[in-house]
């Protein structure tokens, strides 16, 4: 399933500059608020679901080449974080739903863990 479909079906808000998301196919997913766990566990080009919204999520997402970060419970990154994400070509998405809900919806949509 491509990222464009995920953004539309889960009604996610795009925080970074738009790209052609129909060409991006996430490889899987990972949910955690602890960055080192993400470093160890998130699949290359997967989607990461977290409550964290500070600048270091961009560094982690860029290093792991994640296809997107979904920030849950309306946690809002600072403008500088969004700017950094644009520079690093990291996609940040926002939702008011909880991490649990988003993971459930992604799984139901067919994006199961590897």
């Amino acid at each position: 399933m491509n990222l464009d479909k995920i953004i539309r079906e889960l009604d996610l808000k795009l925080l970074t500059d738009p790209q052609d998301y129909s060409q991006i196919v996430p490889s899987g997913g990972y949910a955690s608020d602890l960055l080192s766990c993400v470093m160890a566990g998130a699949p290359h080009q997967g989607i990461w679901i977290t409550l964290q919204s500070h600048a270091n999520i961009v560094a982690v997402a860029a290093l792991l080449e994640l296809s997107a970060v979904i920030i849950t419970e309306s946690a809002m990154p600072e403008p500088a974080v969004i700017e950094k994400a644009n520079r690093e070509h990291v996609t940040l998405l926002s939702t008011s739903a909880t991490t649990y809900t988003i993971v459930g919806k992604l799984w139901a949509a067919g994006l199961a863990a590897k």
Partner: protein
Amino acid sequence: MEQPERQTSVITDKSVEYITRSEELAYELKIDEVMTHKVKSISADMIMRDVVEMFRQARISGAPVTVGGELIGIISMEDLIRCLSHNDLDAAATKYMTPKPITVKTTDPVIEALKLFVSSRVGRLPVLDSEGNLAGILTKGDVSRGLLRALQRTYQEEELRRYRASHLFEDIESDRSSLILRYNIKARDFTNGGSASSHIKRALLRLGANPQIARRCGIAIYEAEMNLIIHTTNGGIIRVEIEPHQITIDANDDGPGIKDVELAMKPGFSTATEEIRELGFGAGMGLPNIARCVDNVKLESTIGKGTKLKMKIFLENEEAVGESHSPNQETIKA
């Protein structure tokens, strides 16, 4: 030119590279460079029947409506369907056109048009020149073709740059050549956390490193970098020595030092404060992550003196960097 691989389930590193480059190009290219210049336009006195005939003959699915070069509206398939459902083909084109369409300027970067395609869901954008006259029309197809043409041009330049870097060591004669990169890391500088590791990762890719190895190095160095930011008194230095068959990474600081090195290597053990943990650090996975990503890790620490972390990654023949057999084009699965 070589096309990026299209796969449904796995995006390769190579295709990601293409995607990234095409995004950059979307900022650099001007709409004028990719739009269709010779536009079939509908004059205000045409009736819808003429419009259908024009679409059919020109094999197009939409066109702007103009009066003496000035844009007054646009007719797309949706407008046409509306007209057909009313069985009203003899109506004036102006009756069914969408008036005052969203426009872009010839000098706008292509990214502006891409944003409009996404936000407004229109299929074509009339392009106006500096005087406000219709200069052309832009569809998503024009953008794709324009980007592909530009990619083809820049592909050769990037290939040459990569080729030079990936043969760095071949042109220099010595008994043992290496490239040393140094990064000063400031304590508590969370804003720049991860920038040294991402720079190193990029350098390795330029030198022709296997993407998987560049990623492993990136993760290990990120953890070392964050340790310097979180735990040290005065920050520290990351030094990376790149040789064709090994990468040696040193992260050194001058204090405070680790009390129990063995405990520090244990997954889940952390001395991070509550404040640091709230930022998502302090999972106690930093050093275990490093150990997982590199072939060899050595941690020495003296309280009051500082910590020396040495990591090594060995490269097999076909993984060598800066030499001709460096594989660049490998397809890596997640």
